[in-house]
């Protein structure tokens, strides 16, 4: 994976998926683009030692997520929903909801979730990764990922269906989940 041709193939295969993931995290075009570019730049410097393309894709997502978290630490935090008391019961999701959703609405709701929930949920929806793969990409235990996806999804649907008026509160460390 070190020739220019290989690198071009890698970029063409994954830059869209990485951008969608980055945009789900940031909701800002420039920030998402920068994250994707930086991710491939890091790959060009370090990651080209990986031989398997499948590993390369996970590595790219992991690196992008890590870069996002690193940049995030330097930014002002915005209020986000922490989910300590959110039930995992899914709200009634009317079939009509499926016809009314658009990207802006979904991203706005997703953006209100704490980062710890947003990242696994974005991968859950965007990619065909198994829970184990999502856990590996985000470098968290499988049980934590399962819990965050379940609770994050419940909260997301609450917001999308308007079944909750609960205001966003500042992000705190997630205390749920555990090792698989």
């Amino acid at each position: 994976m070190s020739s220019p041709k290989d690198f071009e193939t890698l970029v063409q295969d994954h830059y869209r998926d990485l951008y969608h993931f980055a945009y789900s995290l940031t909701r800002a075009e420039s920030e998402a683009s920068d994250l994707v570019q930086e991710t491939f730049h890091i790959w060009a410097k370090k990651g080209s030692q990986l031989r398997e393309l499948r590993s390369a894709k996970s590595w790219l997502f992991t690196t992008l997520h890590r870069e996002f978290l690193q940049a995030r630490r330097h930014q002002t935090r915005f209020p986000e929903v922490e989910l300590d008391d959110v039930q995992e019961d899914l709200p009634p999701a009317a079939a009509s909801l499926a016809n009314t959703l658009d990207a802006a609405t979904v991203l706005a709701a997703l953006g209100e979730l704490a980062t710890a929930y947003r990242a696994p949920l974005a991968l859950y929806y965007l990619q065909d990764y198994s829970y184990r793969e999502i856990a590996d990409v985000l470098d968290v235990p499988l049980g934590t990922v399962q819990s965050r996806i379940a609770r994050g999804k419940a909260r997301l649907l609450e917001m999308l269906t308007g079944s909750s008026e609960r205001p966003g509160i500042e992000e705190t460390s997630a205390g749920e989940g555990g090792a698989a």
Partner: protein
Amino acid sequence: MNSREAREILKTYRPGVDWTDAAFHEALEVAKRDPELAAWVREQGLVYDAIRTSLRSVPVPEGLAADILARHRRPRPHPVRNFLQIAAAVAVLLSVAVFWLKDWRRPTASFPDYRASMTALVSKKYPMSLESPDPALVRKFLANNQSPADYVLPSALRGTPLLGCATLSWGSNPVSLLCFRKPNGDDLWLFVTEPVAMQGAPASTAPEFAEARGLTTASWQAGGKVYLLSSRGGANELTPYLPE
């Protein structure tokens, strides 16, 4: 597994993605036997698809891939070419350094500029480095502060009360300022510096008069030093204090 347990498992089920997972597979088998659960699974699947489609519909900026590839294709410096570039840069820096070291004492301004600057300084309030009427103490203080101290005062100045001194600089050259008090109460300021720093500096002991900043000045060179004497009043006010 009953319907309630199956529904719990299927909350995070993704149609087309998770069906190979054993737990989901078993729960889906339960849903086949429970029409209500099956309807719920279908409904959840539609919403899942809608959210997935929405997130994937975000347009990717045009040119993003090209930007990534362009950044990666940026030519890396050829080792030999890189060495030559560094060598050339070092040569330029050395040339500049040699030029600067050779000419650092070259005047950055003329003697009139120096005169204007010095008279401007004393035409307003300025701090004295040492206030003392003792000529020997003032000279020692100037010497200790790397300011010109081997000056020769005109005889009339030697008998004029000394108020003190200040250590100044003109460019990179030190300047000594001695302040005297005339009998009429006006001050006399004598600046002493090296002549190499200024073009147009007086070349002889014959005083040259000029006006600057409302002051009258007389300048001369003697013993490798340039002297600039200034005071209020006309040239006749300075003449008694000049070299004979």
